[in-house]
């Protein structure tokens, strides 16, 4: 199985959804518009993909950039890029050094992550090797995100606790 197929299978098993999209600003925005619920859309500047790739997303209705705590608390959709995907676990790695990706990927109820297909690696341990992903896993502040936030502390499994209740991954 190819890395991207394995990634899609694992991510789906972890209750994320995965869609393959052409790497253009318009295609990404169209995919967002198709799937995102109504409400304010926070767009974090991409760190690994060219900033222009999110231009069309920034023009979506309800897209916003002024981020007070209040605004972020009300945000429904959050768009970030992901600098790595993990085939075995279906995780994405989102860099949180960057101004907004950390909060946007966490405080939105519906997180949409844009993942460059060439950055899918096999195992989580690949992030800690200097010869993979240009060693960025060893330098960055980041989070492995595996499906939406979840808890079983209240009895049955509930998705969507302090973080998003949905995670949608656009592989570009």
């Amino acid at each position, binding site marked *: 199985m190819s890395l991207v197929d394995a990634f899609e299978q694992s991510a789906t098993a972890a209750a994320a959804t995965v869609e393959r999209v052409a790497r253009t600003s318009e295609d990404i925005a169209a995919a967002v518009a198709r799937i995102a619920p109504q409400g304010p859309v926070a767009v974090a500047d991409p760190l690994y993909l060219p900033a222009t790739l999110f231009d069309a997303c920034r023009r979506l209705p309800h897209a916003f950039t002024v981020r007070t*705590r209040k605004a972020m608390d009300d945000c429904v959709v959050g768009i970030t890029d992901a600098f790595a995907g993990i085939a075995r676990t279906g*995780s994405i790695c989102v860099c949180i050094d960057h101004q907004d990706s950390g909060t946007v990927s966490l405080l939105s109820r519906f997180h949409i992550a844009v993942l460059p297909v060439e950055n899918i690696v096999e195992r*989580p*341990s690949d992030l800690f090797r200097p010869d993979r992903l240009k060693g960025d896993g060893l330098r960055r502040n980041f989070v*492995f*995100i*595996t499906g939406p936030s979840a*808890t079983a502390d*209240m009895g049955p499994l509930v998705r969507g606790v302090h973080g998003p209740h949905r995670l949608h991954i656009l592989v570009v």
Partner: protein
Amino acid sequence: MASPAPASESPRAVANKSSKRSLLAAIRMALRIESPAVRHNTQTFNRNRYAATAALPDYNELKDRARAIKESSIANLPDLITTLEASVKRNGGHFYLAPDAQDATRYIADVCTRAGVRLVVKGKSMTSEEVGLNHVLQGRGIEVAETDLAEFILQVADEQPSHIIAPAIHYSRERITALFKSRFKTDLPLDTGEELTRFAREHLRQKFLAADAGISGANLIAADSGSIVLVESEGNIRLTTLLPPLHIAIAGVEKIIPSRTDFGPFLELLAASGTGQKLSSYTSIITPPLHAASVLTKDGAPVPQREFHLVLVDNGRMKMRQDPVLHEALYCIRCSACLNSCANFQTVGGHAFGGETYSGGIGGSWEAGTRALEAARFNELCTGCSRCVSQCPVRIDIPFLNSTLRQRLNQRDAGKISQLFSTALADDGDIAPLQKLFFGRYDAVGKWGSLLAPLSNWINAIPLTRFAMEKFVGLDRRRELSPFAKPTLVEAARNGVGRVSDPKAKVILFADIFTNYGSPARGLATLKVLQSLGIDVAVSETSADGRAALSQGLIATAAEQARRTAELLRRYIVEGRDVVVIEPSVLAMFRLDYHRLLTTSDGQLLFELLRNHSFDAVEYLWMFIQGTGLEPAKLFPASRHPLGKRLFYHSHCQQKTIGSAPATEALLLAAGFEVATSRVECCGMAGSFGYKKEYYDLSMAVGQDLFKQVAESEADGPRVLVASGTSCHEQLQAGLKRQVFYPTELLDNILQTG
């Protein structure tokens, strides 16, 4: 449901279990109130872990690497601390090494006071529980909001954690609803997990947005970079470390490993061993202070430079590091596999099987190391069944740690009378209370019992005797005692067991004390079945293997018995005989525990020799049959068994750990039996555990799972009960009032019909 428990039955009231009386009160409380939720939740974790670790392609290699990294990290800990201090300061953070709990809490409270903190949000941290941080902060007038939902429940209920990764595992959804309704006086619907979660999220979101400081723990810390790993599923730790301008991480010194490049093996291992996932929802890798999140000031203004403090806690750990045995506990990565795979833990949870902070099999060493030896008294609930040993991702020999704690507690507890007996019953250095001596020296009890049989059995049948035994050695009078055998296995084998001419193989059948004095029939059946295949069988003298002594913490006695037994068997092995062992707990001694007990260089050679030449009786039969191309269906056709071919097989806990159980199932299936198997970790008897007066109820409660599985398997008709361990026999007989067979007894029955 909502009626509050009497005060004596609240978890807080039984948190300190430094006396036996309080330990027993905690068990009663847990069995009455917490058992159903704990059982359901731990068993779910347990199943998920088995599935997740089986799916890890390099599970054993990951365990080896993780163990090696932890071993070298603890060995080099002083250097790693120095390196880490430099890294944290280089990153712009503050570093503080706290010698004890009081100092750690004082430092953190000072930092908060200086920064004018009024509200702290906290991620789950067992170390902060250990040092009692919340109490100290609240004493300074600082509000503390626990944000992990389980910790939030406990904060509302004012209880201590009952599990190291799922602290409120003892709460069912219904009990949480009742708790929230009574404490929050709300009209909101709180009758589903979704509603409860939404309620808690809204409540806590306000805290996050208003917090002045965030306090987290750390799963791992890299010395070379100051990076920390934080594993969670809810997102509360990410918020704790990202939103407030001040972040304090508190962690035990043992969490340090050399480098960020060492994180690799731990992530999947921790997730698989803990929650049974490939990875938890969020695994953060951060090198604080984070410079991001300037967008999220309370009023929209930019956040000034963020402040970070790493507070490392010693609190007994550096002393544990010097301890010849307990240092192994410092390798623990707090995954909870040892809790979830433990039958006793599944039944009562960590409020009974745990101390004020740490719980389960590994918890005793932690309480002893960070608090006091007496705080580890709950380690009594470790039966030594060994199911955790193969589940621990860093291969900690938890039962041996607990035997060692028991040895140290014995020395403290021993009374004058038992010291007299000790001289007669135990080796140098082993002093123990009478009960421990009685159960630890079953070899002596069995020897005299069999010598004096049937008189000894008549005496045992007198109610007054049982009353006295209960009173003086704590042997529960509700337990049936197997009669002492006359003749013993050794005596019976001496009289008229034929020799095989032109043998195809030669073995020595080890006359362990349990078979010899307690159930020679299964020994004789094994002998006859082996001989029927043309195998020459010699029966050894009986010899105490050390299992009983080890389980009671009589380690010096166990070591001496191990030496004698190993030397006895060496003589046969060098003659070219493999050792056939009937009692699985004895084989586990040969394969696992003798490594610890035979410590000299000659002893280690002896251990290797014995390990490589010892086999479970049915495991040996199965290997022999496969090696010679014989057909079990012809040798032992199940259809000829007088009681039919439907059976229920329960393998012994230690047999599962050493991997000798599947052979029995395979042979029985190949012979044509229709086999249902138990799925429990342990029957609950676990050697002498279930015989003890104070643990009888717990032992029977553990057994309920097994009894239920038998009943389920018999929905379409009865089955013959088969078990490999002596104590499993006793437990099944006690629970189901039916005869139980040893596997070779079935095979022998079939031979008799031919």
